[in-house]
């Protein structure tokens, strides 16, 4: 247990920070610890958590994805057209929405892998395209989403928010796939050293496509869940999801240099971000001062994660 904690020090520290922030949030919330408060928090956290997982897959293979928010927006908008009517048509709609997400991810992946374009440039461009399509499809927020389904997925059962259950299931499945399958380990391998992975006989290009495709898939899950929570399709949500997803993976100990981190870390990072902004909302601070304190708490959390630097005895380690 201790070795596990040491090896995953960044996740552990992030989790501790989350617990402290959450306790603070509950303490100042006028309704305190209640199913209602926790469900709202969990729903919001799940939205950003899924976005962070989508970002994680790309960052894992040394990329950065500026189109995550746009894919979420596009799939959310598509959901607002397709996720209603008979159960069959909803199921069909789900399939279409998720396929679109995977396709968006693969477009990014193909440009990066076969086009040799830098991920940041690629996704800047494709992000514009995906977001643009969303805007053309639905210039103003609207649409309709099956309310029964929304209720089932956003409320709580026996005091446990359904969103938390969904998030945990997604995490468990992903952790299994990443740690126990050759493809999952392969993703870590190419993030760690593409050359070594190639020399080891891994299919580097194919694995990269898997990473980008998975990112698109999870982004589509996020987009779908946005539809469930908001009951509308909104093309304008992209920028905040993109930026927060990057902040979340960094907070959660995922290295932007690739090969290090886990979806669990990304989700913890997302929950920290969400909790900080909720904390601000109920803090009673003047709204104009809130961004300043939000930034301050964020900076502190990042600094906590970097404390390990002081334990390094050989300076050479700092530059590895």
């Amino acid at each position, binding site marked *: 247990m201790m070795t596990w904690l040491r090896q995953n020090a960044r996740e552990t520290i992030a989790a501790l920070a989350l617990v402290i922030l959450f306790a603070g949030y509950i303490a100042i919330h006028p309704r305190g610890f209640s199913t209602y408060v926790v469900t709202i928090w969990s729903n919001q956290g799940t939205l950003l958590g899924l976005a962070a997982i989508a970002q994680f897959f790309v960052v894992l293979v040394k990329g950065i994805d500026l189109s995550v928010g746009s894919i979420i927006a596009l799939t959310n908008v598509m959901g607002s057209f397709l996720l209603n009517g008979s159960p069959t048509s909803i199921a069909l709609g789900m399939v279409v929405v998720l396929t679109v997400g995977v396709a968006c991810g693969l477009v990014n992946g193909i440009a990066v892998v076969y086009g040799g374009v830098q991920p940041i440039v690629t996704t800047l461009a494709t992000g514009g395209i995906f977001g643009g399509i969303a805007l053309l499809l639905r210039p103003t927020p609207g649409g309709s989403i099956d309310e029964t389904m929304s209720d089932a997925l956003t409320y709580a059962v026996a005091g446990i928010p359904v969103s938390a259950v969904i998030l945990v299931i997604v995490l468990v499945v992903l952790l299994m796939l990443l740690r126990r399958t050759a493809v999952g380990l392969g993703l870590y391998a190419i993030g760690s050293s593409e050359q070594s*992975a190639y*020399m*080891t*006989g891994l299919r580097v290009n194919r694995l990269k496509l898997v990473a980008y495709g998975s990112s698109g898939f999870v982004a589509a899950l996020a987009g779908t869940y946005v539809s469930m929570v908001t009951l509308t399709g909104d093309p304008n949500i992209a920028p905040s999801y993109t930026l927060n997803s990057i902040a979340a993976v960094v907070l959660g100990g995922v290295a932007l240099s690739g*090969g290090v981190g886990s979806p669990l870390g990304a989700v913890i990072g997302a929950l920290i971000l969400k909790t900080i902004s909720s904390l601000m909302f109920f803090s009673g601070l003047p709204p104009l001062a809130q961004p300043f304190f939000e930034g301050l708490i964020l900076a502190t959390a990042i600094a906590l994660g970097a404390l390990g630097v002081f334990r390094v*005895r050989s300076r050479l380690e700092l530059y590895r």
Partner: protein
Amino acid sequence: MADRYVELKSVSKSYGGVPALTAVDFRCEPGRVHAILGENGAGKSTLMKLLAGVIQPDAGTISIGGQTVRFSSPREAAEQGTVCMFQELSLMPHLSVGDNIVLAAPRTRMGMIERSVYREAREALDLVGAKSIPLGARVSGLSLSERQLVEIAKAVFRKPKLLILDEATSALTSELVETVFGVLRMLKEQGVAILFISHRMHEVDAIADRISVFRNGRHIETFDVGARTTDEIVGLMIGRSLEELFPPRRAPVPDTAPVVLNVSNVSWAGQLVDVSLAARAGEIVGLGGLDAQGQQQIMHAVFGVLRGVTGRITLNGRRLNGLRPPRVKQSDIGLALVPEDRKTEGLIPSMSVAQNMRLAVLGRAPFGLLDLDGSSEARLQELIERLALSYGSLDDPIATLSGGNQQKVVLAKWLVLSPKCLLLMDPTRGIDLPTKAQIYRLLTDLAAEGMAVILQSTDYEELIHLCDRVYVFYRGSVAKELTGDHLSADALIAASMNVHLHAGGQA
């Protein structure tokens, strides 16, 4: 199995018009260890890369057991049983040792990697003498020699039919090399064909059955081990007879020569225990011992890389404790360090030859301005000639140079600062004989000019023939100081294992 020989017929390969291999015929057979010898640039690496599927021949055919093959990636080669262990390590630094090995040939059930594969990985590690490396350890935390062992274990784990080892043992101590050789002999018995590239002649003598010499991209000659003397082989490699590899022994440095570097009672983080040593002007002082016994750390401690070093380190009477690399390299102190791994610590791979050479001198100029009077440029030019650096253009990326020439650039970048004390960490690792000879002569000359040279090395010959004195490290402290007639291979090995203090020794 017996017919699974590998054959190359008039294979040629060139890079951008420069021929790397010209009309090479070559054959190696199962159940034999075949050594490939040649200078850097002789075409050995190109040969290996062709066999391993990293590159494809421009002309000619490669066949295995009479069947012509064409591999378009290392993966295809591995599927056909050809596994290559390259000098540039092919490990993923952030992954665990176990994952690194298993990924080479994962066996899955319903998509999940079988747990039993990790047991086999463990067995492969134990086999090559890496019992002390846990499966769960991150590769990035391992020493160079541990990484080489993992790399070898990874190759063995894949159960190759043709195993190619390119300088696979360059960072290993003699004991570990012996263990690895045991494994190679076992594989040989099982009918594996082994290609072995090494610059260490005695290793080739110890393991190889046949030797092929390459020169300038051509296959010169193949013969059985023992058919030719070492001198003859070296002659074949360089196309002329080599004078002594080592320069003639210098007269001992008098006790009156001033002490330049003085290290007293230095300890650090449990890895250095009360280390004291000294180097006089004009001396070449060796640091030997088994791998990772503190030799590397004491170099880092002197150069100001480590935090929390206790004890006293002085250079020409100046206390160095607490000073960091940017400070100790200044001319008033005059310390220089040639690091262990030239690819990651010695050079910036994406920069040109000239940029790399100017890097160390940059910090000396006022306000970081480039050196305006051109004095260091002139010195650089002088050093390039002195080191006999061979290069296309100084503006070429450093990666286009051979390993030996890259090491010369690392030396040049520090020597341009005219250091008073030069620290070298295994400077001839994986370098061909002629370049080694050049570096040895250079070090001797530098010492004659009054520089204090500290040479950490894994090569016993180097310590014996080059050094005035050798400190042998064992578990973080100096186990023995050897000088003069006491400086012999037997004494070094004995002291490395500390057999005088602990009967039986610890390898």
